[in-house]
């Protein structure tokens, strides 16, 4: 089992950042790697179990299923159904925690998955930098720092 963990500090209140990221269909609005997204079968984006079908800027297609969404804990958990990456059993969680010292929040994005041993390092680095940290960098720019 491989694990990726990335965390950062966003200069916006946890609620403001959550408002931006809780939309399971909203990745193209804030993540620079995502070109388009739609929710399958006409479900609402906050209906647990819904599937988002989206494309990266390079054209790759990914389908992910919403496993859990909590407005109370500010967490979003999802799995990959189909992707071009050589991995299986991928489950990721995005979590926000308020920082009482200043109007900012602590953001964590982690994933567990299985893959061949020779692919692990590239996958861990690629997902950690290109997906998770790239998303945090975009949020940091959006919220000013």
């Amino acid at each position, binding site marked *: 089992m491989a694990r990726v*963990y*990335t*965390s*950062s*500090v966003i200069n916006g209140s946890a609620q403001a950042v959550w408002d931006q990221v809780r939309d399971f269909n909203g990745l193209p609005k804030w993540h620079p790697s995502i070109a388009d997204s739609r929710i399958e079968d006409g479900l609402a984006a906050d209906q647990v179990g819904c599937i988002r079908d989206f494309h990266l800027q390079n054209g790759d297609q990914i389908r992910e299923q919403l496993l859990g969404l909590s407005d109370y804990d500010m967490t979003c958990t999802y799995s990959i159904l189909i992707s071009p990456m050589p991995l299986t059993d991928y489950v990721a969680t995005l979590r926000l*925690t308020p920082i*009482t010292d200043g109007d900012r929040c*602590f953001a964590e994005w982690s994933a567990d998955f299985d893959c061949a041993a020779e692919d692990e390092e590239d996958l861990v680095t690629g997902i950690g930098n290109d997906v998770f940290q790239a998303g945090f960098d975009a949020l940091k720019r959006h919220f000013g720092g």
Partner: protein
Amino acid sequence: MVKVVNSTVIRAPIDAVWHVLRDFNGHDRWHPAVDISQIERGRRSDMVGCVRSFKLADGSALREQLLALSDSQTSFSYCLLDTPVPLLNYVAHVELIPVTDGDRTFWRWQAEFSTPRGMQDELVDLVGNGIQIAGFEAIREITEGAAQAANLS
């Protein structure tokens, strides 16, 4: 029952912050409110269940018991056994989480307790400002200075 939670970000790696915080008997070396502290019955300070007996600068004596300690979660929990201040059923939890973006540390400190009628505001202020935030600032001074010196050298 009231819950007081404060959190901050320390500009130092988590190992440096945890090194100072995990010693349950070490608070007299960093927390400005604590004068002297010792672990009862000659136990080690990382033995879960040990009791720290300590005095504040004003001479008041307190006893706290370590309920949980985890190096993998970088967290510990403790409760108050004896205190001159009416903090009742007081249980506190300290948790550190790494901020990978910039090699910093997120620190969350939570306390839950009951108070006698009419004393809640005063005691919430004591715990939030006098214990938690004062502790943040003391650790910030110790660890951020060391992290800065390490970067310069």
